[in-house]
């Protein structure tokens, strides 16, 4: 299930004296990919690899003077999935060692992705995607989603608050109706906004 981390990295002026942010996005993404692929597939015995990756991540983190909050929070709540699978793995006769290595791999990859997300503006990642020929429709969709995700999340929150401020009962049944109405309304608003965005694109010569 989804656990949402607030996008703290997206605020403020990200370039203020942080060299890591100015490294080319393509290099950062390729590097992250190598680290993740390697960490996910190297044999469990390669202790040196894991140690090396951890060290490298730590150094980049320090160089970038990035806030430690997001990664720690995310690692602590390593998502119910990890806990569940670890539990199931502990149950099966595979042994406890296996589970620890899995958690280690998982944690290192997670830290890599968070570091990448912290150190790379999303617009630059999109530009790299375009350059490596990810289908244009997919990149456009990702870009639009990223653009309006916070707008719609804000709208959902405003609707929820408006509803909560006028709700005087605490029944679960009512709460479900109310939440479903918020979601339904959100879809209606998203559809209407999509129309207006299309108009705005058309007004500036799209297609």
């Amino acid at each position, binding site marked *: *299930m*989804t656990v949402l981390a607030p996008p703290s990295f997206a605020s403020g002026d990200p370039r203020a004296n942080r060299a890591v942010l100015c490294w080319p996005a393509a290099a950062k993404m390729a590097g992250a990919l190598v680290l993740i692929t390697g960490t996910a*597939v190297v044999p469990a015995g390669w202790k040196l690899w894991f140690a090396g990756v951890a060290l490298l991540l730590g150094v980049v983190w320090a160089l970038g003077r990035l806030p430690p909050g997001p990664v720690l929070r995310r690692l602590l709540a390593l998502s119910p999935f990890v806990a569940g699978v670890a539990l199931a793995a502990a149950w099966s006769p595979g042994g406890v060692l296996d589970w620890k290595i899995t958690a280690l791999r998982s944690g290192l990859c997670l830290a890599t992705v968070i570091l990448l997300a912290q150190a790379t503006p999303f617009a630059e990642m999109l530009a790299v995607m375009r350059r490596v020929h990810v289908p244009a429709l997919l990149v456009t*969709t990702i870009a639009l989603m990223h653009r309006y*995700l916070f707008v719609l999340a804000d709208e*959902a929150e405003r609707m929820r608050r408006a509803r909560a401020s006028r709700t005087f009962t605490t029944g679960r049944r009512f709460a479900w*109706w109310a939440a479903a109405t918020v979601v*339904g309304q959100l879809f209606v608003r998203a559809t209407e906004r999509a129309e207006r965005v299309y108009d705005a694109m058309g007004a500036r010569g799209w297609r």
Partner: protein
Amino acid sequence: MHIPDGFLDAKTALATGALSAAGLGYALREVRRELPPRRVPLLGLAAAFLFAAQMVNFPVMGGTSGHLVGGALVAVLLGPAAAVVVVATVLIVQCFLFADGGVMALGANLFNMGLTATVGGYAVYRGVARLLPGLRGRVAALAFAGWCSTIIAAAACAGQLAWSGTVAWRVGFPAMVGVHALIGLGEGAVSALVLLAIARTRPDLLPDQPGAAAAPGRVGPFVVFGLLVTLGIALFVAPFACPWPDGLESVAARLGFNHPASSPLLPALIPDYQLPGITSPGLATALAGAAGALVVFLLAIGFSRLVVPREGPALKTEI
């Protein structure tokens, strides 16, 4: 159900990656061909909608709450090809921006939630909505489809974990499917309620009733998506779930788990997983599954009668 990195081995990652890339590529082609330009921004907005909708909490019990996953809902609202693109977009952004679901596991997550859940959910919805008329029928169909989509995605996920040798099938499958049989009930109910909420305010945004003359579904997408999903299920689930008694044993041997079966993780949830009088565990599982699905189907119909007044989407007084 987002699989993190480190839980899948290389062959599973590659196989799921290939299947998902094929599915997403085909979906993009379909969308480019079928979608009028006016609707193109809707894909991105729908992805943002799904993301925001997943942040709306539905209280369950004791202070815990769940949220919508939405594969089946989006498939019903936008059609299967657009839904595959939309859910894939959400998964990609969640993976790279929120570190939710692993990069190596992205293929598997795309396959489970982006492809299997949406296309499977849509197929179930169409099948049921054809049988049951009116808004009630559609609400019941989506409630059932939401449950089914959750279950098949969970089963595929368990299969991938077993294939990777991370979690043994006989532990992972009952745990995943058992938990998601409950989660799926919520998913189905929430999806159906959202459909109803949209039907109340903007019925024009809903797709036509399946089976109606105005809704001529094309067969091509069904065949291609169906093939891909079947191939994946055959790859991840069938080796473990085949009804021959020695199937499980041979798999366990291959994976090096020759120990006697461990007790199910959630004995209270699935106490009688093996029905009396049936000796083959695979067959028993299949029968138990069918019985469970039937119960949920009846629940979905009852639910639709509860929430949709006879006259159709009239305003409910309690809202």
